């Protein structure tokens, strides 16, 4: 079914774009959380973790209100592009980035905390600037964290439903992602199609997770 193929592609695109965007967004945030001892840290940690506990419909609702062409943010976008942020792919990307933020920040935070400060001090004495330390000492040690964050973010975005339902709708080629397509098939009592999508999605998720942890996870382990 070509419509469903489109839904698959759209889902992969959405999850991929979200994951790629979250790498540079979450890294400085996670690094600050790992290194800072400012009083505001717990506040930031709580805000970042909100999408973990909030019902997706709450997030979807507020995004609907904020990204509406009548609102400030949505209005700006409308004036520049002539399109609405709600019920569009771009709007979904924004929603997914917020929705999956903790799934990238938390693994990175943990991994950055595990980088020993003494080692960074030693690198500095060897002539490594903070940027050099980041690129050549921290990042290589954080590979596992990035892998975990990337996999979790991707998988989490693929499973997004409540948020999409609220402010994404069911627009083929724009917002009709896999979860919505499955829902639609069930609604129209097309169980056969629902099965093939749902089962396919389950197998894909399982396979990719297994492959990642079997091969890449091993490669990134510290050499013993």
């Amino acid at each position, binding site marked *: 079914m070509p419509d469903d193929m489109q839904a698959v592609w759209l889902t992969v695109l959405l999850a991929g774009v979200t994951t790629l965007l979250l790498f540079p967004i979450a890294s400085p945030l996670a690094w600050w959380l790992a290194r800072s001892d400012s009083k505001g840290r717990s506040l930031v940690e709580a805000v970042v973790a909100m999408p973990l506990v909030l019902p997706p419909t709450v997030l979807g609702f507020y995004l609907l209100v904020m990204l509406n062409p009548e609102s400030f943010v949505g209005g700006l976008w409308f004036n520049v592009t002539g399109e609405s942020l709600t019920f569009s792919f771009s709007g979904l990307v924004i929603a997914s980035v917020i929705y999956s933020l903790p799934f990238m920040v938390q693994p990175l935070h943990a991994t950055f905390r595990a980088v020993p400060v003494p080692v960074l*001090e030693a690198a500095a*004495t060897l*002539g490594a600037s903070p940027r050099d330390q980041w690129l050549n000492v921290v990042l290589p040690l954080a590979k596992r964290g990035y892998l975990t964050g990337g996999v979790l973010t991707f998988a989490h975005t693929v499973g997004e439903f409540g948020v999409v339902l609220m402010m994404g709708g069911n627009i083929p080629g724009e917002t009709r992602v896999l979860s919505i397509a499955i829902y639609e098939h069930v609604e129209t009592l097309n169980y056969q199609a629902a099965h093939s999508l749902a089962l396919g999605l389950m197998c894909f998720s399982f396979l990719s997770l297994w492959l990642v942890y079997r091969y890449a996870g091993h490669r990134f382990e510290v*050499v013993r």
Partner: protein
Amino acid sequence: MRNQLIIRGCLERARFTLDLDLSIDLNEPLGIMGATGAGKTTLLRIIAGLEPDFTGSVAFCGDVWRDGMIDRVPTHQRGLGVAFQDSRLLPGRTVENNLNFATQRAPAVDSRLDYMTLVEALDLQHLLCEPVDSLSGGERQRVALARALLARPRLLLLDEPLSANDGVHRQQVIAHLGDWMSAGGTPFIYVSHAAAELAQLTRQVLILDQGAVRALGKTDTLLDAGNVVPGTEPSSFAAVVVATDNDSRTATLEFTDVDDAGIALNRGERVVVCRDVSEGSGLDASLQPESDEDQR
């Protein structure tokens, strides 16, 4: 001005406050001694720019490195080479990789200490491809030392760099260091508990006690035979028990291995031995005067 190190300021720590007013000519290698917790490592860290709470100034060769509470020159631009006491090798990498980290960031200067010379002198050639996480404590320290030297530093800071190595390696490395540093001319500071090492490598020594400078002067003078320095490791010598006297609970020892860096011993000098010995047995004897009055 050349190789002049100036440190003025203070830093509060839990157990003491480090209060410094130093102007040291590093044309001659400097040793730092003191009891554990006296502030030796902290002093090195201040020179390296790793103590953000230090209030004062640090200058080297006329360059102001720190002024008040601001680093005018950050750590990575000070041209340092530091061998930390806990080695601090980059984890998850090989020895070679760690050494290359230094060479890649070293200034392009001519040095007769090329890579392989250094590696062989420090007995690391068979470890180059080993992951650092599998090395012993002593091996890690030697890698850290090689790494600091390969950074071609303007100022070399060595914090008890051989404490985990056995006697054989220690002697070898000290001998090499002595050669290189005298001819190379790199100013360096050497922190140690071992008086013997300091006597061999340094010309001047700074003694710290609870954050305060207790003495600063020539090594020969301060480490004179029998001079008690707080926190010095008593030197240890191999000896054989020649005779024992149960009544006075004394034993006569004949020292078999007394090297040039040791103290002058008079034959028949009495020593108190803290465990039971029998005639003919060999042991390592540590010598410490009972009190200040017992010098000489």
